[in-house]
């Protein structure tokens, strides 16, 4: 095993770290420079700094292979797993990145955040299977690989908190359940073995639930594991509407988009407000609506404006129904998902062959 102690080429890596000392309350951006092996990732560099410069530097770590989810933090303002970021290209470019704690969670010390609010939200979605029985059957339940694939991405989640760190909705509403908990929610809603779908969706449709997502897609973009939490939220919305769980204004709003596009091929904006908020509440907006109409910002409601190729719009809706792609199955969003469309369609054509062998 002589190779283990082989020496590697070194790279001069510089970092700026936002330090925070809870005992003195001091907050300070400090710069460090170390010689790191050329293969070093951000976590290795932090280790070198802690060893050789300052033993009080605090950050979490464990597996260093992108599976335990301990080392979420920010580099130049975006959430990363420290064990996943290679430093050589950054150092070679002469860049000195700024490292700070994740966002949307209270900072305890340096790069360590309080994860309690994160876990409380996970707990809030009742994250365990509701099997619908007490006695365990003799063997396993029969589930096809295609059914498993529905929750493949959500099962990859390592609970690192990177998505929550970046969530714009949570920044304005700290009570928003947020991308990680909602992805966990879909992990059960999408599981054919779970019997709690309706109850779960009713819960997730409450205030601070799925409809409070602003769809900025930062969670999809920053998730280090390709979970695509925003897609999970979209799937939860689609499942809710499929099951007529539409008490939230967000659901009503979305539903009207669909209905309107299906019937006339256009979004009928003048009806959108009463359909979303209800007649009584929208009466208050009448002055505003008239002003909009006066300035030609909205078309007159009557007669309804029907698109020229409305048949195409209607045919699309029929197709979705005949293919059984209502609900979660119809949601294809985000870069990762788009990249997989071909794969999914191919698998469908082969019909079932996709299952493991």
């Amino acid at each position: 095993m002589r190779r283990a102690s082989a020496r590697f080429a070194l790279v001069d890596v510089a970092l700026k770290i936002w330090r925070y000392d809870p005992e003195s309350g001091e907050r300070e951006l400090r710069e460090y420079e170390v010689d790191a092996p050329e293969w070093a990732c951000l976590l290795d560099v932090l280790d070198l700094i802690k060893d050789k410069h300052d033993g009080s530097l605090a950050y979490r770590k464990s597996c260093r292979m992108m599976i335990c989810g301990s080392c979420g933090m920010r580099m130049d303002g975006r959430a990363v797993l420290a064990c996943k970021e290679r430093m050589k290209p950054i150092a070679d470019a002469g860049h000195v990145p700024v490292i700070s704690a994740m966002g949307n969670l209270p900072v305890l010390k340096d790069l360590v955040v309080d994860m309690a609010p994160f876990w409380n939200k996970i707990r809030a979605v009742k994250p365990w299977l509701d099997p619908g029985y007490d006695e365990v059957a003799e063997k396993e339940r029969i589930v096809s690989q295609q059914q498993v694939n529905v929750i493949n991405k959500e099962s990859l989640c390592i609970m690192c908190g990177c998505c929550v760190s970046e969530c714009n909705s949570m920044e304005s509403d700290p009570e928003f359940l947020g991308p990680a908990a909602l992805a966990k929610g879909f992990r059960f809603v999408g599981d054919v073995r779970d019997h709690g779908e309706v109850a779960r969706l009713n819960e997730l449709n409450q205030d601070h639930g799925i409809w409070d997502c602003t769809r900025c897609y930062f969670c999809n973009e920053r998730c280090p594991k390709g979970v695509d939490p925003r897609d999970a939220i979209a799937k939860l919305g689609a499942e809710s509407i499929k099951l007529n769980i539409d008490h939230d204004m967000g659901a009503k709003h979305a539903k009207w988009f669909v209905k309107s596009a299906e019937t006339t091929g256009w979004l009928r904006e003048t009806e959108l407000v009463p359909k979303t908020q209800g007649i009584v509440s929208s009466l208050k907006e009448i002055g505003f609506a008239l002003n909009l109409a006066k300035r030609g910002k909205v078309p007159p409601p009557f007669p309804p404006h029907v698109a020229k190729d409305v048949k195409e719009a209607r045919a699309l809706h029929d197709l979705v129904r005949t293919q059984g792609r209502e609900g979660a199955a119809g949601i294809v969003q985000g870069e990762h998902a788009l990249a997989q469309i071909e794969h999914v369609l191919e698998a469908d054509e082969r019909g079932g062959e996709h299952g493991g062998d």
Partner: protein
Amino acid sequence: MEAKHDVLVIGAGCAGMRAAIEAHDAGADVALVSKIHPTRSHSGAAEGGINAALGNASEDSPEEHAFDTVKGSDYLGDQDAIEILCDEAPDDVYQLEHWGAVFSRTEEGRIAQRPFGAAGEPRTAYAADITGHVLVHVLYEQVLKRDLTVYEEFFVWKLVEHEGRCQGVIAWNLLDGGLITIGAKTVILATGGAGRLYTGTTNAYACTGDGMAQALELGIALKDMEMMQFHPTTLAPTGVLITEGCRGEGAYLLNSEGERFLKRYAPNAMELASRDVISRAEQVEIDEGRGVDGNVLLDMRHLGAEKILERLHGTRELSMVFAGVDPIHEPIPVRPGAHYHMGGVDTDTWGRTTLEGLYAAGECACVSVHGANRLGGNALMETITYGKRAGAHAAEWALTNTTVEVPESAATDAERELGELLDRREGERPWSIRNELAETMHENFGVFRREDQMRRQGEIVDELRDRYESVVVEDKGRVFNNDLTQALELGFLLDLASCMVVAGIERKESRGAHARPYDFPDRDDENYLRHTIVRWVEGAPKVEWKPVKMTKWQPMERKY
């Protein structure tokens, strides 16, 4: 005493959480203590799968599973323990499935199983190549469902023995600082392995052998400590794990000449021989100059993109991030790395140690189902089956005994000792000792072992222990002071290294992971078909022996 429970489980990986669930369901008041959040546990890094004779991919039986395990252990495994494991494994896996584990599926919709090293049948149930991740999360879900108390980010430092019983622990609160005493009628160690003894290891930073070292301090026996498994496929330079599932799916191992060299070492099983055999073969190829920059090559290009994407997605991700290699297009450079400690706290088949009230399960325990070499897929299974058994027994014992007593002095002594460490201003910081320990263990106590190197390593560890006496913790704060806990972990590692080296010197044969090609190249059943037992006696490790339990299988020549 700040808190008190019937059953206190230390460590919240697969074994710990499974034990806690079982103890709770038996009616006990249970708490888990873990220095990291449960889902951060290193069980989550297990990739390839979990072995149970479900018979979903071929005809199979617990008996065949047991035989493969006995042979794989190079006959050092205790056969009663192995039979229990293999008999209970199928139901334990079904239980995980009913809790919601997201397994991969066969065409019939059953749990999929793949071939694994040294297994006669495709027996390894899997969830793509993230099986451990899936199990850790499903167990944590069940912990949440039961609303179990979890002391998260509490670092257990000492076990408390009082009146011949283990009655609790003393732990450092990482988030807020300070020591607390948690009393318990029974304590279950489920603290995992000690791979951090080596530079090239698949193990997480958390794998510092805490539970084993704490048991050792109380005079409890550790078993087969020389048996450290080197996994054949770890990524240079740091040892990130590449799953055996790759070879299970059909990947080849090649040397620099493009030769599938295993035909010269294991002509029948080839890439699916046992791990000890393959790691040695790789090391010989590398040492004899047929390596590629200190590695051999794992070639899975012929599996095709679809199979790689569907079943080995995580492996591809690791290869691309840590080696810059996409296995769809290029072979992955791999080499042996420290992976799994077959040795651990000596227990019976209910997880009981020699101290009343103290149990152990999972990698920190040695029951022993793995003997001198563990089969891939048996570790996860052991965590579940023996975690469950330890939990059941600990609960039963706790529910029939009432008292918990921890003398005041336990806490005050600990406070004083910690105070001395934190007050020290002059001395060496731990990192250089830690690095030297890991480098020298790799050099002198690795895949192949020589008497002179082992003796030298014993001296090195003694020197490092002397230096550790005056180690300095730089961080003097209370909040998230892991400078402190890392220093304490180093102490644990040093104790364990001492035990490993003395046991290795005493075992004058080659068996499983303990290979001495230069002086004792063969297995010696006459003298060494027995476990090493190490106890800490008057400041030094002392080796004794214990017979192997045999039920049906007599030792045979082991070939793959």
